[in-house]
């Protein structure tokens, strides 16, 4: 094992310094950010669900407060969450393919193709989600 050169270290946030400009770097940095956002949501989700332990009435009151008010504006964040998940999923599939050596010669084109498909699916998802909550077009 090579002895680490401590002075080489830029710090744990090296990956988040946006002086790098390639497509691959941006894809990677946003993948990590989106992964962390989804992870944060997962625990938030568990926290909300764990209110079930405090009884049906408490849980229903919480769910009602975020769907009908006074905290219903949180629902708008769901669209952001969907965006992040669709981005992460599409890029994740691309990365998995590339790591098996598939599509390596066209990894940038593959990134854009997957993301465009994901954004179209996201549009459909958002449309049906809005229909579901009763916002007509």
């Amino acid at each position, binding site marked *: *094992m*090579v*002895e*680490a*050169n*401590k*002075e*080489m*270290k*830029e*710090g*744990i*946030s*090296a*990956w988040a*310094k946006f*002086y*790098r400009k*390639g*497509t*691959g*770097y941006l*894809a*990677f*940095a946003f*993948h*990590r950010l989106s992964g962390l956002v989804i992870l944060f949501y997962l625990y938030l989700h568990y926290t909300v669900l764990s209110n079930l332990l405090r009884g049906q009435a408490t849980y229903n009151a919480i769910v009602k407060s975020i769907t009908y008010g006074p905290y219903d504006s949180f629902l708008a964040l769901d669209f952001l969450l969907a965006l992040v998940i669709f981005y992460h999923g599409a890029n994740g599939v691309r*990365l998995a393919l*590339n*790591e*098996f*050596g598939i599509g*390596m010669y066209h*990894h940038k084109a593959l990134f854009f193709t997957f993301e465009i498909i994901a954004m179209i699916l996201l549009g459909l998802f958002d449309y049906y989600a809005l229909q579901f909550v009763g916002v007509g077009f």
Partner: protein
Amino acid sequence: MTDEYEFEIKRKDESGKVYYSTYKVPKDKISTVLEGLLYIKENIDQSLSFRYSCRMEICGSCGMEIDGKPRMACSTIVEDLKKDRIRIEPLKHYKVIRDLVVDIDPFFEKYREVKPYIIRDDDGKYDKELPQTPEQFHEYANFAMCIKCGLCMAACPIEGSDPQYLGPAPLAAAWRYIADNRDKGAKYRVEVVDGEEGTSRCHFAGECTEVCPKGVDPSFAIQKLRRTALKIELASIFGGR
């Protein structure tokens, strides 16, 4: 537009003090960044330190951060940067010895880790030449172009957060030998490169490939290594070749 460039250079003196020096370099006297640095050293400030040798992008010694990106000073044409004020800093992820000179030993140590030489299973006791077709040559030729300048190590975001990571050029070198039909050392190299500090650290940001002056594609090599390692691991579990 003026008729002078301003070279803004990050420096470090023997006491460890870091500061910037700015020099005016006449545009009609130079074309590359290295020529600009030499002009400064000859005419303005003899204490400015930087490393160079071949002046033709083959020795790999003049790597530095030029205008925010790792580049070779000798092959970077100042005019192409489309700026009059050029900021020059030592390569990131290396220890600075003085001014623009960095300690590249840790990079070479990592390079050695991957056994960058042909490994045979016949102890070198072969009585015929080892033939290689042009197609077999082109399997690895691109990766053999590496001049060990270490720009890729400075560009890699993972190198920045985990200095133990083997890094792009050493991994590309591992692939260069594995892809060589005369080599039989894949299983030994996979032991080195398939570890936690090897290919699994790569997140495919591809900055190494972006900055490489010789068109080596380390990020491609790393994905190829992953596949090779997987094949060897699977074969060791399920038997077969």
